[in-house]
């Protein structure tokens, strides 16, 4: 089958690219080997850690761009970053939406009891931003191994409560199982009563981020009614239920728009002629299917999803064999101090691009004419260190599609 655009990779950047291209009326195929990292991170939308509190987004970002000319944000530009974020949030109308507290970052509690700066927050998490100042009761579940309320509460200066096992469970529960139970009124009432009994003078209750998949706002409201206090979600270990909500929403929207969504199999080969990609093969043994398009966006992520692969000698990009900017040898991957606050060189490795996000070699020569690059595979940023993961993915996914579909 032939498309206007093929997006390779189904993480946040790929989904954003597919959405953006589809809005311009293009015939789009998005394919992914798996769900990308949406279930691993993406509880909230990080933009940049250094965005000073109170500073307006465009000011903070403009400063960053000035200081980091090779950063993906510099290729996108502050204005387009803002446009991309607006496009992303438009998928999530209230009540379950993504909001920023004021203009800058908020400090949100995590399942590890730390506070981390982040930019856009799901409305179910907003009340957590002031937990340090105003206190709260942190609630967890016995048998749920991904969240320990005592540990988090101690660090956050809160009181904790571990709920006993309920009829619904035996000795072990998973995030997905909990999220599903939370959608049931009977379950909410059962735990709500228990929490109410244990409430001291707290005015808010923090739960691990498992308040349902489909209607988290409704679950939050339901709990608040039973408990009689404000409820908020705390991001925890993977699998991330909030990340799943993002994935589901994109998928629903894309299918509704007529985008072809192929999940579950990887691109085994790109067919190149000169500096153009003519098609890709997708393997689903014993077959491999051929798809072609006028343009392609590569958004396959880094090492976790296989967008970048490292062997004994070097890091390479397996689909197009694009040049990968990287430290000269493995010895230089990490700094002497592993826990250094500074970024390790290996995390800056990735695909170099020109200002329109097309791949270039180390001399700045364009390598492919009809391929654009988006997301965490881009060189010149370290999303974990900068706390820029979702921001970079959303902005470059949006920008790559805009550039690819131009003219």
């Amino acid at each position, binding site marked *: 089958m032939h498309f206007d655009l093929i997006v390779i990779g189904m993480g946040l950047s790929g989904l954003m690219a597919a959405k953006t291209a589809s809005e311009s009326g293009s015939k789009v195929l998005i394919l992914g080997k798996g769900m990308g990292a949406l279930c691993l991170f993406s509880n909230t939308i990080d933009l940049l850690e250094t965005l000073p509190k109170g500073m307006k987004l465009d000011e903070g970002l403009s400063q960053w761009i000035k200081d980091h000319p090779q950063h993906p944000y510099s290729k996108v530009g502050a204005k387009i970053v803002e446009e991309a974020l607006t496009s992303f949030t438009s998928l999530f109308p209230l009540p379950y939406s993504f909001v920023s507290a004021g203009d800058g970052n908020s400090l949100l509690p995590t399942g590890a009891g730390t506070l981390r700066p982040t930019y856009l927050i799901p409305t179910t998490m907003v009340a957590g931003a002031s937990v340090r100042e105003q206190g709260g009761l942190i609630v967890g579940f016995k048998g749920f191994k991904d969240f320990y309320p005592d540990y988090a509460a101690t660090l956050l200066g809160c009181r904790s409560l571990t709920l006993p096992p309920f009829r619904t469970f035996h000795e072990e529960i998973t995030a997905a199982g909990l999220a599903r139970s939370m959608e049931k009124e009977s379950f909410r009432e059962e735990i709500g009563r228990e929490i109410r009994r244990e409430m001291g003078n707290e005015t808010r209750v923090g739960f691990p981020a498992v308040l349902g998949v489909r209607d988290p706002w409704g679950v939050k409201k339901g709990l608040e009614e039973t408990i009689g206090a404000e409820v908020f979600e705390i991001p925890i270990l993977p699998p*991330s239920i909030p990340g799943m909500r993002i994935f589901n929403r994109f998928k629903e929207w894309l299918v509704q728009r007529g985008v072809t969504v192929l999940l579950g199999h990887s691109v085994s080969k790109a067919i190149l002629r000169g500096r153009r990609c003519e098609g890709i093969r997708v393997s689903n*043994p014993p077959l491999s299917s051929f798809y072609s398009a006028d343009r392609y966006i590569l958004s396959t992520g880094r090492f976790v999803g296989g967008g970048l692969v490292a062997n004994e000698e070097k890091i390479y990009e397996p689909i197009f064999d694009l040049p990968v900017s990287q430290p000269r040898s493995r010895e230089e991957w990490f700094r002497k101090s592993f826990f250094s606050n500074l970024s390790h060189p290996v995390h800056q490795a990735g695909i170099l691009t020109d200002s329109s996000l097309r791949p270039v070699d180390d001399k700045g020569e364009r390598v492919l004419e009809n391929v654009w690059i988006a997301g965490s595979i881009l060189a010149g940023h370290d999303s974990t260190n900068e706390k820029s993961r979702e921001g970079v993915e959303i902005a470059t996914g949006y920008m790559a599609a805009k550039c690819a579909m131009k003219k």
Partner: protein
Amino acid sequence: MTKVPMTEAKVWPTSNADACIRCATCMAICPVSRVTPLFPGPKQAGPGAERFRRPGDPSVDSWIDLCIGCHLCDMVCASGVNISELNLLAKAKYLDEKGRPLRDWLLTHTYLYGWLGSLFSPVVNWLLKNSAIKWMVEVILKIDRRRQLPGYQSPTFRQWFRSHHSKGDRRIAYFYGCYVNTNEVEVGKATVEVLEANGFEVTLPAQECCGIPMLGNGDFKGARKMGLQNVPNLLKTIRSGSEIIFSSTSCGHMIRHEYNRLLGIPGSEEVAEHIFDLFEFLRNLKESGSLNTHFKELPLKAAYFAPCHLRSLNIGLPALEILRLIPGLQLENIDADCCGLGGTFGFKKEKYEISQEIGKDLKQAIDRSKPEIVLTDCEGCRLQIRHLTGLKVLHPVQVLRDALLQRTDEEMG
């Protein structure tokens, strides 16, 4: 889409459990571990347990039989671990050692006695609905009496086809499967009529049960036997110059992928190249501009549900693409994970509750959409959705057939 056999090195190793990075994405999607703590979930049951399994050791995986075989874990895994395949191999080993109840044999060998069901359908259907019989079946065979066993039809699809004279410019072969033959003849008729309306003469190659009920129950030997019977017949059809289509995504997935991947049936690669999902085939016609799109207005509100095996075919949602061409048809895609029937899974007494619990999520999604009818390509999903919602549930081809303008309609304007 053009299909070509894979010439690249084998990318689907027997076990790639070590590729698992324990990211837990599969734990978010598994429909079974979401509803019951009895199943530890794909991460634990698949690659997790696989690291402790050694060929000579007896199986201790008493929960492995709870994997419903939906493949959703495989689809979301960014590391490409063949989780459901690991589960299936472990299930086979467990059941081989523990032994299988007569019930499992009966549920997986309907092809042997389905013709009897059709022959005596009035009596058989009455018996299947009789509550005393259902109670006995539950006590003796452990088939849950709350589940309605599908009724039989007479004449069978094959018998009907014998007196039907298919005409067309090009030939196409149809793998209809057991269920269409004895239980849902209408689906077969609609498929034939749609293909004929597109200028094809339909033929029926010699065929047996595809074997998926056996494979799903970990009976590799039984499944392989069916594959070894079907492949030579299908190859004969292909070599005579005809492509093959299937209307059941489960049969189709079995033939196109599992015959080769899991069962290693000789010649299955060539069959895979030439066998197509019905709507995938129609989409190819549409792409080449030769699809008959003379549709009449069909004012109907329908919900479409994509079966798990359609998703693992990795061809997108071709039925949705084709049905969207029908004027007046309001079509909503139901975004839910698995219907919960899992072929024979949901009939078993010890699994009925789990099956229903999984199905509830789908039922709620359908309720929200408030459709007049539900459409889905898999017979198992159709059975389950009827059971869950009481709504009319059809194969999408039945709606497509109804929308096609008959020649006389056209003449009448």
